[in-house]
């Protein structure tokens, strides 16, 4: 064991959106003895690489509720957290190119409307009237929720981190957790490349590395990381307010505040494992597809291309809760590509669970890892 460098009530592993938002949420509840350990720089993992979409159009009741609470918190981010994160409710336009999927969309909208979400169903004609710059060939239908939107994920992390620091939390960057000290079935400290820190609770918010970090306490988490690529174009004057997304079409795209278009797609052939390289195949596939659907893109240039990890769970929904094997070991992992958008609500609930022993705003019990012990798992269908 290395030299004892400090002691905190809560140690969080991971300086992405979950880690920093959780530090902020804990401080908000009065728990300011908090440390965040990030092995690289803030938002260096999945958050800083993601598309930045924030949506509420999900296929299950619980996910809709969680997302709606998140949006409520995003709407007040500037006042509450004190940073402008380029949050913009330009809507999410979900495009379906598949008859069966379109039927599913209609069912989803029923669930969403029951939860009080204002969602429109649009015909291809309505889509092309509203967005004349979209080619609606082969489109079956679309759904649109104005209250969905997007933000700058990196600024959100920095905003949460700075707010948490102001309230007393400590954030250690370039500090890698090498071991978690468990004694008598209870977490008592973490060992890092910068020394040993005593603690009463540990939270695994390590995104792509969730499985490996969990193995440090001997708890198995059913997560796997898959590479997803993304690129950004040069900027255009802002005219494209919404996130356009399609599951059957396999793409998402938005225009950021600065004017650049950010877009990506999934790749079914991707093997599990951490890989931050990028492929030209991706650029070719995505550009050919996208200029067909969004012809104006043809005149733009690609500025940067990178990749990030989806930390996938078996049902494509996050795994959040408290371990019943090791005391005071918490986890918020397996977001399956949509951690950024639900982080405010998830971390609010998780902070409540840690400090108060129960959640008061949003029920997250359905996301506990125990659900995989059951035979039937309701898979989230709305994932790229």
């Amino acid at each position, binding site marked *: 064991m290395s030299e004892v460098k400090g002691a905190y009530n809560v140690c969080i592993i991971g300086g992405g959106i979950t880690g920093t938002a959780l530090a902020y949420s804990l401080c908000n509840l009065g728990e300011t003895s908090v440390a965040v350990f990030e092995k690289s*720089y*803030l*938002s*260096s993992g999945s958050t*800083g690489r993601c598309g930045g979409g924030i949506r509420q159009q999900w296929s299950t009741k619980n996910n809709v509720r969680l997302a709606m609470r998140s949006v409520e918190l995003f709407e007040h981010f500037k006042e509450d957290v004190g940073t402008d994160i380029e949050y913009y409710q330009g809507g999410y336009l979900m495009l379906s190119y598949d008859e069966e999927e379109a039927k599913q969309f209609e069912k989803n909208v029923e669930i969403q409307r029951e939860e009080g979400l204002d969602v429109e169903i649009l015909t291809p004609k309505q889509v092309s009237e509203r967005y004349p710059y979209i080619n609606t060939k082969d489109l079956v239908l679309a759904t649109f929720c104005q209250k969905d939107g997007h933000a700058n994920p*990196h*600024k959100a992390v*920095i905003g949460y981190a*700075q707010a948490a*620091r102001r309230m007393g939390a400590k954030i250690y*960057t*370039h500090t890698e957790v090498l071991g978690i000290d468990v004694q008598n079935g209870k977490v008592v400290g973490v060992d890092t490349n910068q020394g040993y820190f005593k603690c009463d609770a540990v939270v695994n918010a390590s995104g792509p590395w969730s499985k490996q970090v969990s193995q440090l306490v001997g708890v198995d988490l059913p997560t796997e990381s898959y590479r997803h690529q993304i690129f950004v*174009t*040069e900027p255009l004057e802002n005219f494209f307010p919404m996130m356009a997304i399609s599951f059957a079409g396999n793409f998402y795209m938005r225009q950021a505040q*600065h004017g650049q278009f950010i877009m990506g797609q999934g790749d079914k052939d991707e093997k599990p494992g951490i890989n931050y390289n*990028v492929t030209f195949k991706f*650029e*070719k*596939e995505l*550009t*050919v597809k*996208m*200029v067909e659907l969004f012809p104006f*893109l*043809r*005149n*733009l*240039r*690609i*500025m*940067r*291309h*990178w990749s990030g990890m989806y930390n996938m769970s078996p049902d494509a929904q996050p795994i959040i809760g408290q371990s019943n094997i090791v005391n005071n070991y918490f986890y918020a992992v397996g977001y399956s590509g949509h951690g950024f958008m639900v982080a405010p609500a998830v971390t609010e609930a998780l902070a409540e669970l840690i400090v108060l022993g129960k959640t008061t705003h949003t029920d997250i019990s359905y996301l506990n890892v125990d659900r995989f012990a059951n035979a039937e798992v309701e898979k989230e269908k709305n994932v790229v």
Partner: protein
Amino acid sequence: MVDNEAGGRKHVDAIVIGAGPAGLCGAIAIAESIGDGTKVLVVDEGIEPGGQLPKQTHKFFGHEGFYASVRGFEIGKRLVDKAKELGIDFLMQTTLAGIYEDSIVAYDRNSNSVSEYTADYILIATGASERFLLFKNNTLPGVYGAGAVQTLMNQYKVMPGKSFLIIGAGNIGLIVAYQLLQAGAKVKAIVEATSKIGGYMVHANKIMRLGVPILLNHTIISALGEDRVEGAIIAQVDGKFKPIPGTEKEITVDTICLAVGLQPSVELVAQTGGEIRYISELGGYVPVRDENMKTTVDNVYVAGDLSGIEEASTAMIEGYIAGYNIAQKITGKDLSEKITDMKNELVEFRKGPFAAKVREGLKKMGISFPSGGYREEIQQIPSSPSKLKAVIECPQAIPCNPCETSCPTGAINTGGNINGVPQVDYEKCTGCGICVTKCPGLAIFLMQQREEHSIVGIPYEFLPIPEKGSSVKLLDKNGKYVADGQIDRVMINRKEKTHIVFLKVPKGMEGVVRHFEMSTASEESQAYICRCEEVSRNDVEKLIDAGITDYEEIRRVLRIGMGPCGGKTCRSVVLQIISEKTGVPISESRLGAFRPPVIPLPIDAIVRYAKGVDTDE
């Protein structure tokens, strides 16, 4: 919109040429009176209607009936909105190519197409063009007219240069200088060939207290530079405007801005057969017209600068006069009351000393305007009030009275005539500061003597807005440093954007201090590290001070290196700054990611390539 005639020619009741203040008001008057805007067509060359108004960021003089204290671009918007509400048609980016015997021909630059019109009445409000000046190398890139500088800077948001020499101290030269300073440029000097400042003294004071010298009896001899302006030679002139040998001086600037007067654009009036006469007081060749703005051709009217170089308020009034006269003929209704009201407005506006030339010029056309009848006496500034009081430094009789009409306690009056020099009743003045934010000349200050120090409140239209408590250098009315002071507080005026900065100044200096300079960081700290995204050293240092010390973190917050160059120039500089500030040697610093593509890659090229590859397979 318009009735179609045979051969594709369209007919309207009235065609208005020029969508500046005169043309817009004329069109509004016609449309309002005939109750149908679709019978009126406005044609203009500009991208947006408003003429020069969209380029004007300063508050206009005059009275509230003609938008005094409202910024020019805002006046333009209001007039255009009104015209559009009335259903008036606009043909923008369209040049009225000619008024032919058989037809009025318009050329649409955008669609590269021509269209033909006929009209019962024509109101020509084509304004004026800028005069040019002869000097050596005046074709070097970097020599601009003031109108072009305003268009680039205020309409297209492009700065034509960084440091300016302005030729001409009329209102346009003074206003452009102020706008350039607001936009962050340097104005090295204004040179003026005559022996006095031609524009309003309040406009001159605004820039003098910012330290810009106005060199009277001076002119430009030559622009300097190989491929573009790198400087200028100026010299003193004698009584006949001839340069005096041996007085030449070199000034380093990258832009020369000419503001040496305007000349009416009479071409179209001439094409209608209207008589043109040379009257120097009105700006040179002008159309001959009567007091109803009718030219010597029965159905052709003029208004605004075309009928004599003046300013926006009188242009609007002339537009109304012309418009109501046209409408009277179209409808047969008696509009004489409205016409008389507008003529009375003109009489009021033209009583002062600045309208002397216009009065003389119009007399030559047989139209006379009275002068005088306003107060010229300047009020003595009270010494050291113990409560906050307004002090007005508006020494000339100019047609302007928002101070009077905005004062909630009735403490300010211009003596019963809009041209009168304003005075303050100190029994009634509560020091509320409303007049300070309203005054278009930024000529009203607040002052108060306290026990330890005095307070001076100054109107402020710059960014950034200084923070309470920060230390400043206090400047006098010529922009000279006189003492150190502090920002006491700032009264933010979000709507109109003339804020009041209250300065703590040494006792007894309340009559001296008229501006301030931030005791800011060095110029180097404001220089751009990342030129693509315009990020300064200061921006980077602030972030490092806040604990954001990773290149990647800084990059993503500030967008440094995210421009077309991809960080080729800025990365090493940022790493150097991080190293300096954190003490971590640069050799140990984390370089950050190098993401492809190395240069921006056209999507089109990838798509064409990808499709080619596909067909090969």
